[in-house]
């Protein structure tokens, strides 16, 4: 099975500040959009659109920035909100998505 990238990607996050939420040993998604956003980032990195390490450093600094300005128990914390923002940033930076013309929502 072609899961080497998948193993590498998640394995690199184990025990690190950007580790995704999990439940009973599995990834846990609070909503279908989180699942999609997760898959999109992995799929794009697997294709080489951006480096996984770059995505991860962006996640780690975004999480640190959130924590610096919020209480840790702040209920507005949403790992995948940060994930999505980082994903959008990576896509703009790599030129895959043009902010001025592509984003319709």
């Amino acid at each position: 099975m072609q899961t080497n990238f998948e193993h590498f990607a998640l394995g690199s996050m184990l025990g690190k500040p950007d580790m995704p939420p999990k439940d009973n040993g599995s990834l846990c998604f609070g909503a279908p959009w989180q699942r999609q956003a997760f898959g999109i980032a992995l799929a794009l990195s697997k294709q080489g659109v951006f480096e996984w390490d770059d995505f991860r450093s962006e996640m780690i600094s975004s999480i640190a920035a959130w924590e610096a300005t919020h209480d840790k128990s702040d209920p507005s914390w949403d790992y995948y909100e940060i994930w999505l923002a980082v994903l959008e940033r990576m896509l703009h930076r790599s030129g895959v998505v043009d902010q001025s013309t592509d984003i319709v929502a």
Partner: protein
Amino acid sequence: MSPQDHHHDHDRSELSETELRVRALETILTEKGYVESGALDAIIQAYETKIGPHNGARVVAKAWTDPAFKKALLEDGTKAVGTLGHVSRVGDHLVVVENTSARHNMVVCTLCSCYPWELLGLPPVWYKSSPYRSRAVKDPRGVLADFGVTLPKDTEIRVWDSTAETRFLVLPMRPAGTEGFSEQQLAELVTRDSMIGTGFPKAPGAAS
């Protein structure tokens, strides 16, 4: 639910701004040929089906029903798990330790958080917490009590310390009352904690 639903205007009132952003991204990436929904599903499914405690549970259930496999598993965990073909890769040397009425095994990683996650899925938060790591070695019985696990006084507790090279998997005792159970039925009783040694398999008939 369908990621391929293009009727944005129609759905707009029911979707949050975040959902719309994800849909917009997915639509653009699909149109530009970066994302193909089949490939996307395959990636997500790889995480949902290939990584998780169910892999370890299948190994345990097979060991409970197949004495030859159990023997092979205890002799060389990496090799035996490899013969099953459903776990994509057990990275390092896997040692399987068997619980008996005389000995209970428990796994810790005092140095870091080494963990056979191909078999057990992603490690629980407590596994890498320093209280678990330090107390598991000094006071395993106390730690087990915190998990609600009490063992007979004369049961020896062995604590196995994982390293970067060697990972451990506990083979729990098969629960009573499971005679005639299929591998599939048995696998459903095997919990993640029972394979770390901080819990027991579920009793047959108990709610999950």
